């Protein structure tokens, strides 16, 4: 997005027009003054009067511009109305350096003769630097928290954002800033979406707009639970993958014309979701609001509590923001520590269900063991390092078994971000570079159970 001088695009080898329009003498009227003075003519025409000879011999009349250079004999020629009109219409493009070299020359030639155009040309050219790119990412990302905290310290919110909606709020804002800073043509950049399947990592190629439609479609499940309109309609499925394909299909014609629209629609929905989350009161009763949400570890579909559904969407928002950032080569870090820890906690809490699911499907390596009801079963110690880390004890035999931190049968240690990448299919279990202790088959089962939480 660097600034550049006007006029040197079309034919870089040719001499670029000067920064100032340089009045030139018209070849057809060699004896005439270089620039015509008119009563209103200040600006370029007047200033250029002393330099008129510089352009001697340069015939800048471009082809196809209509600058036929009507030549009055003797005095100054008045450009024909048609030529004047054609050249005038080029002034904006000229000021922005968006003309061909021939057109540049024709325009600048015309500026000699036409004080009105010369005046406008200067005015437009001076306006060009005023057009600045929006630079959201130049803002210190920490400033958001700082400002919001300062505001809330002065006047506490009557409708605060529930803590479980905090990560979603922050991640949506980060992704929004990234999308704002993207150039228009980057919307069609290819972005691979990945997830774990048994035996190999699956991949689906889409575009930035496709990623946003994916987020829009799955976030829509929360909209339903909060009595907001489902972007896919009331009869849409609750399976995230089906929803995504439905959205890709129905939005395809609109996205072909205006892919950025996916950003707008997604952002409007995230804002409505956050507003609705604040209006729920955020109380403990909400943990019992179940969001129909087909999740990979449950064969029969399943649900997530509203807080967990918000965390899951924050997780998706980060992961896909990172996908987009990688595709367009933009820096993008993980969520802040407290939020990352909430995401890690969600994943850790879902591991037991995923382990059981894989065991039922015959995919577990470690032998099962029945635990008497009410007795603590075997546990795996999950040790997550980093600012989002902590210790979790995962029940190995039954998701509902009581958990004991004493005597884990195995220990798995890995970084917070790597753990999340594993659970979102961005790295494979083999790449997760875990430090382990204990039964290798159990370690294997745990890592694969984490990977199996990923989906499109």
């Amino acid at each position: 997005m660097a600034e550049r001088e006007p006029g040197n695009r079309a034919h870089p080898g040719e001499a670029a027009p000067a920064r100032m329009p340089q009045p030139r003498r018209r070849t057809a009227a060699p004896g005439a003054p270089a620039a015509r003075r008119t009563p209103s003519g200040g600006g370029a025409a007047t200033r250029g009067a002393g330099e008129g000879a510089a352009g001697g011999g340069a015939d800048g009349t471009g082809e196809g511009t209509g600058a036929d250079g009507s030549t009055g004999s003797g005095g100054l020629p008045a450009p024909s109305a048609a030529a004047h009109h054609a050249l005038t219409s080029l002034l904006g493009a000229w000021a922005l350096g968006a003309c061909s070299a021939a057109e540049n020359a024709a325009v600048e030639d015309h500026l000699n003769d036409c004080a009105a155009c010369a005046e406008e040309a200067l005015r437009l050219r001076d306006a060009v630097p005023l057009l600045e790119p929006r630079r959201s990412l130049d803002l210190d990302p920490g400033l958001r928290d700082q400002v919001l905290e300062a505001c809330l310290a002065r006047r506490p919110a009557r409708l605060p954002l529930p803590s479980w909606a905090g990560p979603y709020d922050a991640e949506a804002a980060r992704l929004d800033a990234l999308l704002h800073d993207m150039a228009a043509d980057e919307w069609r950049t290819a972005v691979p979406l990945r997830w774990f399947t048994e035996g190999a990592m699956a991949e689906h190629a889409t575009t930035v707009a496709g990623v946003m439609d994916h987020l829009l479609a799955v976030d829509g499940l929360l909209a339903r639970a909060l009595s907001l309109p489902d972007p896919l309609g009331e009869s849409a499925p609750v399976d995230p993958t089906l929803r995504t394909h439905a959205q890709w299909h129905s939005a395809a014609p609109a996205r072909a014309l205006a892919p950025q629209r996916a950003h707008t629609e997604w952002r409007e929905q995230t804002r409505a979701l956050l507003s609705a989350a604040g209006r729920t009161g955020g109380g403990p009763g909400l943990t019992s609001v179940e969001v129909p949400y087909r999740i990979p570890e449950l064969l029969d579909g399943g649900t997530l509590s509203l807080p967990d559904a918000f965390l899951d969407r924050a997780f998706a928002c980060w992961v896909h923001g990172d996908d987009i950032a990688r595709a367009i080569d933009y820096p993008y870090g993980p969520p802040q520590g407290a939020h990352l820890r909430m995401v890690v906690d969600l994943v850790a809490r879902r591991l037991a269900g995923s382990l059981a699911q894989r065991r039922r499907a015959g995919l577990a390596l470690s032998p099962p063991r029945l635990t008497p009801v009410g007795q603590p079963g075997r546990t795996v110690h999950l040790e997550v390092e980093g600012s989002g880390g902590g210790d979790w004890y995962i029940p190995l035999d039954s998701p509902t078994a009581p958990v004991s931190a004493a005597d884990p049968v195995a220990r798995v240690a890995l970084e917070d971000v790597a753990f999340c990448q594993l659970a979102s299919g961005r790295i494979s279990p083999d790449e997760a570079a875990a430090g382990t202790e204990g039964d290798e088959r159990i370690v294997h089962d745990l890592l694969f159970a984490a990977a199996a939480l990923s989906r499109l």
Partner: protein
Amino acid sequence: MAHETPPRWDRAMRERLREGEAAALAELYDRFASLSYSIAARLVGDGEAAAEVTREVFAGLWESPDRFDPARGPMRSWVAAEAHRLGVARLRERAAGEPEQLAAQVRAASTAARADYIATSMPAPLRDALALTRFQRLSYGEVAERLGIAEDEARRRLRLGLQLLATAAGYGGTGESRGSGRAEEAPTMTPPSAVAAPPPAAFTGPPVVTCGPEPGAPGAPGAPGTLRRDGGEGE
């Protein structure tokens, strides 16, 4: 793409702020923080001072949402004017520099703020055409192709967009892009008859532009309202 928010949005936002809705405060920040920060940064420099101004702008509105009156202009303008006001105040507080220098700084920041206002409130098709040429270095022919419009329409949008933008520097003398040797020419650069624009730091509405050079010419650029709205989109 931080387009101007519609009046309805402004009024709803004020109502949500009155209610004390934290999500509304966050949304307000996401919409206007970069505007507020960039205006402040022009006056007091990048860094802590600009961050403080930004904090004050949002805290002020959050504490007293009624300080914004929708009848007197868009919220975006209010934020811009408030950031400008607080930035100037801070600049004056520490004014060690020459008064002329201070005035020039304030003027440049005013021009930039007006330009931002104009750029965000101009019709999306104009802004998109400008952005494609300036930031993606497309020729007008490529712009036409990208937007699916005729070449003369692309030329028209570029010219009209710049005419609108030029009104930002149109009064009070020099725009910040001026070279040093040209100050004395400044008054002739902008015939007042061709331009009617809002006064500095009072962002009361989109500027009205009439196209001076060829008032009678057929097909002359019209007012923004006559724009064809194919190929662009707003937020």
